[in-house]
């Protein structure tokens, strides 16, 4: 692409010729306020807050719709620009209800931020404000019409990314608002992205509604484990170490700015039905006792390790290393959630492979197809000495194949974070508590072959340990640590 040279606030920059002024500014760390502009959506140019001055132009222009040109001189400050933004802010707030105390967006609201930066300190509007409708748009999205500034980000999202085109603008002028087309419902699997891109509190999540004020949350970056896309996410926790919501982080190589509803909402398993302590034959035990019991069982001849595709590369590698030194005859198989067809939207694809690390399993363990590997093991008839089952799949349900394998193994050593079906199923001799992906660090390889590392976002809620530490404890390196926890 041809490059052009321009000046932004006196600084010389060189950008590709097809960029807009706002993109050139943002890429060069110059802040330009914006509501309707979104880097992953088409340009609408309707909010008019991104006014910048361009030398030679008689009045400020909107930076989001202005292409860059050779020799352009852009100023993002100045009397003209500030006055234009002040005017825009005043118009936007004319019909805004100013119900910030009740609004979930307050604290991360662009109207609040820009009003503080560019607006005036009092309103001059004395007439009655227009009251607009309140509606439930879909299972996860609620709409507060009065707060809406009609930036049409959500309308463009449903047209360009989710593709359903459920939303549109109805009425004219100051009465215009967002509404569903007749007979439609905002129930697509990407609906909660509308909540994120809404710069004000007009579209809010019904799952996060009234849960917490955003300034009481603390955020940590993570990687979503719910499918093989590996969306980059941000996990918001409250002071009580409870996950309150998950929102996407922008990564153009993986998920742009989007994330599916399933990935955002599947965190209940972190706080419910957790395996708190090691168990030996169904009774709570200390890590020391559990370690001894597990080591005895794992040395049995004809042992098999069954590792799910929900485990991190580090967990797989450490278990592989441990088995090759302790009991080299142990064979390793893989399994995972069943693979369905991909859900393809115009701007986003939700993988049908509901395992985060099938590609990593291929790299680390050399198992190309996890479920084919399980089938191969299920087809065998020999009795299994000890089955080392490393599950870590949330809400896992035992399949017929796994059942047949469990039935013909004399003992099962289970590594799992939940007290699910597997633990209840008869012959689990030793169960060692692990941690969910939110509580440990590691890496997943997504389906494009990108290795993504992540750190723990929260304190562990149980006495569990990550698989790498469990292996270290089994080896005897760190027995004392687990013993007291």
């Amino acid at each position, binding site marked *: 692409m041809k490059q052009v040279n321009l000046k932004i606030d006196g600084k010389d920059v060189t950008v590709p010729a097809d960029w807009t002024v706002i993109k050139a500014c943002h890429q060069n760390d110059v802040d330009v306020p914006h509501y309707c502009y979104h880097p992953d959506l088409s340009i609408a140019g309707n909010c008019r807050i991104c006014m910048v001055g361009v030398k030679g132009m008689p009045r400020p222009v909107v930076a989001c719709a202005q292409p860059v040109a050779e020799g352009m001189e852009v100023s993002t400050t100045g009397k003209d620009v500030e006055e234009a933004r002040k005017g825009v802010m005043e118009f936007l707030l004319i019909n805004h209800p100013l*119900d*910030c*105390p*009740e609004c979930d967006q307050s604290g991360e609201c662009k109207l609040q931020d820009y009003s503080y930066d560019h607006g005036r300190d009092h309103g001059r509007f004395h007439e009655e404000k227009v009251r607009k409708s309140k509606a439930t748009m879909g299972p996860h999205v609620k709409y507060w019409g009065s707060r809406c500034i009609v930036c049409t980000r959500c309308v463009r999202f449903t047209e360009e990314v989710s593709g359903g085109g459920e939303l549109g603008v109805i009425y004219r002028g100051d009465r215009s608002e967002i509404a569903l087309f007749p007979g439609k419902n905002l129930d697509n699997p990407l609906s909660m992205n509308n909540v994120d891109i809404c710069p004000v509190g007009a579209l809010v999540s019904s799952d996060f*509604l*009234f*849960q917490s*004020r955003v*300034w*009481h949350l603390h955020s940590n970056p993570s990687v979503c484990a719910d499918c093989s896309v590996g969306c980059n996410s941000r996990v918001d926790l409250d002071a009580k170490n409870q996950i309150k919501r998950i929102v996407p982080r922008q990564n153009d190589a993986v998920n742009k700015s989007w994330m599916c509803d399933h990935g955002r909402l599947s965190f209940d398993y972190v706080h419910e039905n957790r395996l708190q302590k090691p168990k030996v034959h169904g009774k709570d035990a200390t890590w020391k006792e559990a370690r001894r019991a597990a080591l005895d069982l794992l040395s049995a001849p004809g042992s098999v390790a069954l590792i799910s595709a929900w485990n991190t590369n580090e967990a797989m590698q450490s278990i592989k290393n441990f088995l090759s030194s302790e009991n080299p005859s142990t064979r390793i198989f893989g399994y995972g959630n069943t693979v369905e067809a991909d859900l393809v939207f115009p701007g986003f694809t939700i993988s049908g492979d509901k395992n985060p690390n099938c590609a990593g399993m291929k790299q680390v363990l050399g198992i190309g197809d996890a479920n084919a590997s399980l089938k191969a093991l299920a087809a065998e008839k020999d009795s299994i000495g000890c089955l080392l089952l490393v599950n870590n799949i949330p809400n896992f349900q035992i399949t017929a194949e796994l059942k047949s394998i469990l039935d013909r193994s004399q003992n099962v050593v289970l590594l799992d974070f939940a007290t699910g079906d597997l633990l209840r199923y008869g012959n689990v001799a030793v169960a060692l508590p692990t941690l969910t992906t939110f509580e440990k660090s590691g890496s997943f390889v997504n389906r494009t072959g990108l290795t993504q590392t992540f750190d723990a976002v929260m304190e562990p809620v149980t006495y569990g340990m990550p698989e790498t530490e469990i292996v270290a404890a089994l080896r005897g390196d760190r027995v004392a640590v687990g013993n007291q926890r």
Partner: protein
Amino acid sequence: MSVDMKKMDVHPPRPEMRPSRLSWITRIYIPMILKGMLISLREFMRKPVTIQYPEQKPKVSERFRGEHRLTKDAEGHMKCVACYMCATACPAHCINIEAQAAPPEWDGRDKIPSVFEIDMLKCIYCGYCVEACPKEAIEMTNKVPKVYQTRQEFIYGLNKLLNN
């Protein structure tokens, strides 16, 4: 871990900390004892300034910052919208709020608290919550903080605060 005492920095007492030399009249004590007894005698004759709290309550000014009250609007609904401003402003972290959706028949209201607790033992009665409230939903009465037998009783809930 052992500490090497020789390496520790020990300062001599500062000059103003040393006791000054007393005069002989102070050292024989008797004039000072007489002086003290005279003061005791004078106070014994006067009306006492203390009161028998908690049986007796002190008279306080109209602007006294006492126990909190949650106010109600003209329809008798609580004004509080569970915005957490008071809890955010509170320097003692004594306010615990949990929010819920308002009943549909409350016109124009979205959010109300389901739990509103003030721990009166933690509260320092600074009045920042009143200052922070955007809805004038919390105010301070001139009721002097009460005394209870258990810690649990000091945590005032929604009902108690609304009827305080």
